[in-house]
């Protein structure tokens, strides 16, 4: 049997969800027997590949880049999982949402700065008006809330998915 192709991606999040993924410990070895990790912060691929079986998305969709990437991922992935509250609810990144991005950048890079009083413009993607959950911009097949989701929950999700079952998370996970 050929191995499943699994990708992970880090949008507007703190990488805590990836840390929690690594916390599944020795189960990682089983996972790697059944799957190849083909894209994400844990591997070296530059371009998101075609025909990915499962993509775990950490983080909210906050910038033009996030939006383009997640749209591309959706086209190239069979099963897309929102991993963690940032992806599921927009969580901490959404705390900026009541402010206009312009006002926010002014606060952070002008009023809040000691030197270089101007928002960065080179090489940084434009912010969207709101940081939003992944499912507000593309179809999501499974939501795994938690900040971060517990390693047990991630282990359950990954194991079930690799056995081609859809995990039932009702009662097993919570926001926060």
């Amino acid at each position, binding site marked *: 049997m050929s191995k499943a192709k699994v990708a992970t991606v880090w949008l507007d999040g703190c990488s805590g969800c990836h840390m929690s993924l690594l916390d599944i410990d020795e189960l990682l070895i089983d996972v790697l027997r059944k799957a190849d990790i083909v894209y994400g912060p844990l591997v070296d691929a530059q371009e998101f590949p075609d025909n990915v079986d499962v993509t775990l998305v950490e983080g909210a969709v906050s910038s033009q880049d996030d939006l383009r990437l997640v749209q591309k991922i959706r086209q190239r992935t069979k099963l897309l999982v929102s991993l963690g*509250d940032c992806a599921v*609810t927009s969580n*901490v990144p959404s705390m900026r949402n*009541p402010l206009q991005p312009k006002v926010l950048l002014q606060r952070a890079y002008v009023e809040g700065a000691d030197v270089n009083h101007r928002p960065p413009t080179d090489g940084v993607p434009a912010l969207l008006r709101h940081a*939003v*959950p992944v499912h507000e911009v593309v179809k999501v097949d499974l939501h795994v809330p938690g*900040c971060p989701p517990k390693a047990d929950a991630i282990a359950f999700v990954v194991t079930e998915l690799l056995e081609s079952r859809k995990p039932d998370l009702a009662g097993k996970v919570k926001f926060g």
Partner: protein
Amino acid sequence: MNNKISIRIDGELIPATPGASLLETALAHGKFIPSLCHMKGLSSVGACRLCLVEVAGVNRLLPACTTPVQDGMSVTTQSDKLRRYRKITLELLFAERNHVCAVCVSNSHCDLQSLAQRLGVTSVRYPYTFPKVPVDLTHKKFALDQNRCILCTRCVRVCAEVEGAHVWAVSSRGVGSRLVCELNRAWADSRY
């Protein structure tokens, strides 16, 4: 006692006291009906709509907390329809304000959060509204963060019915409703 009546809850015959609510009666018999605005010892206002149940012969859902028991009433507390509506109600509550559980002081001791877990809400299908709502930090000891308010009015009722102080009220309507202190002044300017 001869003033006892009986009702059926999910088919089970249960003795009830006239004047008691469906919710109280069900809870007293170990039945689970979700609720958020109900609090023991306070009047019931039917604000949160989590306790909706089906009553035989009534063609709409009724809030168990404000519906008095009647002899012979037959009530359904668990059904696919109710589960669907309860999830919708919870998701709308999450979408209406900024509930950032991860950084909330009430994380892991929050009725809204634990009910979402219990009822299997793992995402919110409605677009979040991200409202800009007031946070009152004027008081020496307490802070009021309306980002997390679900307008259950428990605080309003505790203040009026238990303390007798009548400091809190709700102003405006619908999604614009806000908790206000003494006809809308800063908490620091209140006598309390």
